[in-house]
């Protein structure tokens, strides 16, 4: 590992913020609105309430067992083999999230901006760039995120400002969409839209002091939630419930609608550049964290050479599904359903075991 502990609160916060908040600009809103209709914009809030305590418990445990990242923590609490098994599950979740998301993102780029290019080529270029980014090591990733964050968020802000005149707030009503019970269950089932928070925990030791990591992660996750809520609110008030269900890429649909006065029409490509920037960062994180989990499970201290084979694996598996709608609406949804209980209950189980063992007393 090439971390010398130079990262601080700001870098970690940037990573978490970009990693989680980019969910407003892919197909997640469409996925959520399938069942919840116009109540879907509250789902992130419910998910957050459900999953955030688990995240805090995880941070608390990491604090108690000093100098360990999440896989080492599991090993320390549950014993070597069970801990490694949990680590493996982490790896599989991170990796499969990456594969499904990658296909989805590639499909967006292809469909909207490069209709003639073959998917394979775009996939290849996309993942190779992410690989080169990841290869630079975690500190460079952290610095890049910090530098990129203001630019990316500024463009998101600009989108909000320019689209604001099309927002009709009455469209959020009826408030509970397809029904309160449906929204609540969806919120719990899809709690893993915040799964990225747990993937970041592998980098627990990367900061100068672990306190900085905790502070950065907590602050950033709250900001990310606010951002998701705001964008989902805009989607529902611009599109209305019958339309949002059908739109595969709401972010791109919304930037197509933006006009900057009479003269500057059709300006979506400007926003697409920043979106692409954020998307690259997202896959850099995914790739790096997957390799890190893999390395941690199989005791490979120098895990960076793993990035290349993993990147190729992403391309190969990502190209397997028939089309992106299927990947997103069927496979990815199943993955979410699988991940949610794991991330909700695991931290409490670990805490319980640690408490039984008496490790928490000190």
């Amino acid at each position, binding site marked *: 590992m090439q971390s010398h502990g130079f990262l601080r609160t700001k870098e970690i916060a940037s990573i978490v913020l970009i990693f989680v908040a980019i969910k407003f600009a892919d197909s997640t809103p469409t996925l959520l609105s399938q069942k919840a209709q116009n109540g879907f914009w509250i789902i992130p809030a419910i998910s957050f309430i459900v999953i955030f305590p688990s995240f805090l418990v995880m941070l608390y445990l990491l604090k108690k067992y000093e100098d360990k990242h999440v896989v080492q923590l599991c090993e320390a609490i549950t014993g070597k083999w069970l801990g490694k098994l949990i680590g493996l599950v982490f790896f599989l979740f991170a990796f499969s999230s990456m594969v499904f998301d990658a296909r989805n993102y590639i499909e967006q780029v292809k469909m909207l*901006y490069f209709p*003639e290019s073959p998917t394979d080529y775009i996939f290849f270029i996309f993942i190779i760039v992410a690989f080169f980014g990841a290869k630079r090591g975690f500190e460079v990733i952290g610095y890049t995120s910090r530098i990129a964050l203001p630019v990316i968020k500024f463009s998101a802000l600009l989108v909000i400002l320019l689209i604001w005149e099309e927002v009709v707030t*009455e469209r959020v009503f*009826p408030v509970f969409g397809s029904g309160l019970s449906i929204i609540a269950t969806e919120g719990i089932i899809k709690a893993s839209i915040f799964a990225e928070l747990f993937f970041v925990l592998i980098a627990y030791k990367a900061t100068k002091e672990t306190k900085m990591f905790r502070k950065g992660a907590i602050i950033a996750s709250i900001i990310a939630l606010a951002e998701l809520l705001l964008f989902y609110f805009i989607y529902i008030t611009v599109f209305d419930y*019958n339309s949002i269900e059908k739109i595969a890429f709401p972010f791109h649909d919304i930037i197509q609608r933006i006009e900057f006065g009479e003269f500057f029409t*059709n300006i979506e490509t400007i926003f697409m550049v920043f979106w692409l920037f954020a998307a690259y960062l997202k896959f850099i994180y995914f790739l790096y964290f997957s390799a890190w989990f893999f390395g941690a499970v199989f005791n490979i201290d120098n895990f960076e050479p793993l990035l290349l084979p993993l990147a190729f694996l992403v391309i190969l598996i990502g190209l397997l599904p028939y089309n992106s709608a299927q990947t997103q609406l069927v496979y990815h949804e199943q993955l979410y359903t699988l991940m949610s209980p794991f991330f909700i209950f695991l931290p409490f189980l670990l805490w319980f075991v640690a408490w039984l063992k008496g490790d928490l007393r000190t």
Partner: protein
Amino acid sequence: MRYPILFVVLSFLFLLVGCYDRIELEKQSYVVVIGVDKTDERGVYEFTYKISNPEVGSASVPNTPDEPAAEIVTVQGSDILSATYTANSIVSKRITLDQTKVIVTSEELARSEDFMRVIQSTSRSPQIRGDIQLVVTKEKAVDFLNNNEPLVETRPHKYYQFMLTRAIETGIIPKATLHRFFQITEGDADLFLGIYATTEMDNNEQHNEGIEDKYIAGEIPQQGGSPTQFMGSAVFKEGQMIDTIDGEETRLVHMLDKTLRMEEYIATIPDPILPEFFVSYDYSQKKEPVINIDYYPNKPTEINVHVKFQAEIIAVPSLIPYTQNLEYRKKLEEEIVKRLEDKTEAFIKKTQTEYKSDPFYWSLYIRKHFKDIKEYEKADWHKNIYPNAKINVTYELDTLEFGKMIDDSDLNEVRD
């Protein structure tokens, strides 16, 4: 020594992949308007593409060739995109729909059940943007496009952009984007208004009562200029055209719907004191209308609408001193408000009994009375709530200005 070579090869891989989607501007034909017509066969439509000629009117070409500003091609096909490939047997370059501004459809097609089918295919393609305006023409779309020859603004994209923007600003036609069409049609609660236009003069219907907006396209007596008239709207219910309304009614819709924007317009009313003359005033509305809906499941819903507006008197041909005389001014104010209220009431009655739905997008305001969508859809705004509702629209004249002249010249003194 091998690494530099590898690097060069790899960088080619990266740089050249972008060339897949490379296409020269010169090799594309930009369609500005698409016309859609019915044919005798079901499922087959006639598509007309108006392709702009970029060489005309551009400053970068010093000697503008003597070519027309646009080319019009008509082919048959099953949907908008696939017909472009058929059209390519006539047009020399690749047909691109990225810059399309308007879809024109004939009234015949708009009134048929299949209209939804042909227009639905537009939302799937990323080339066709949601902010394309929907225009319904009295004649066939192909005739409309062929007859429409603007005299001054010959570049078609600018013509449509300016023509529609200005007409929407004055409220005589609605803003009718595809996005709005799908939103309202899929929402299944309100009426969508499309732009109504024609190049065919209807000499029987032409009338002139001195009122500037009581027309539907084709009825405006005109001399000179381009033969195209944009006026009034086509009313769509559940994705199918059911009627047309005139410019005046379209303006009423603009006043009562907060999602449609209108800058201001000039209206004329008969002079309350000397009814053979007219008084013109400039109507502007700074604030959105206040709409209150009291929903009762078992008895008629009450809808109260309050509109605040400003007026500025432009012309008083009767030369009655409205500025000075308080009593006269009161009468004028009352007349303006009363006329608006009468017109609105008559129009609402028509929508309730004839259309059985509203063009004002008022279903937005009833939504908050329901907990979830199931309840809302069961209550059925379209069929149940709106046609039976008690609707009360009141207007309030906020300020009445008299322009820069305090008083008109006194006819008696002039003729002295």
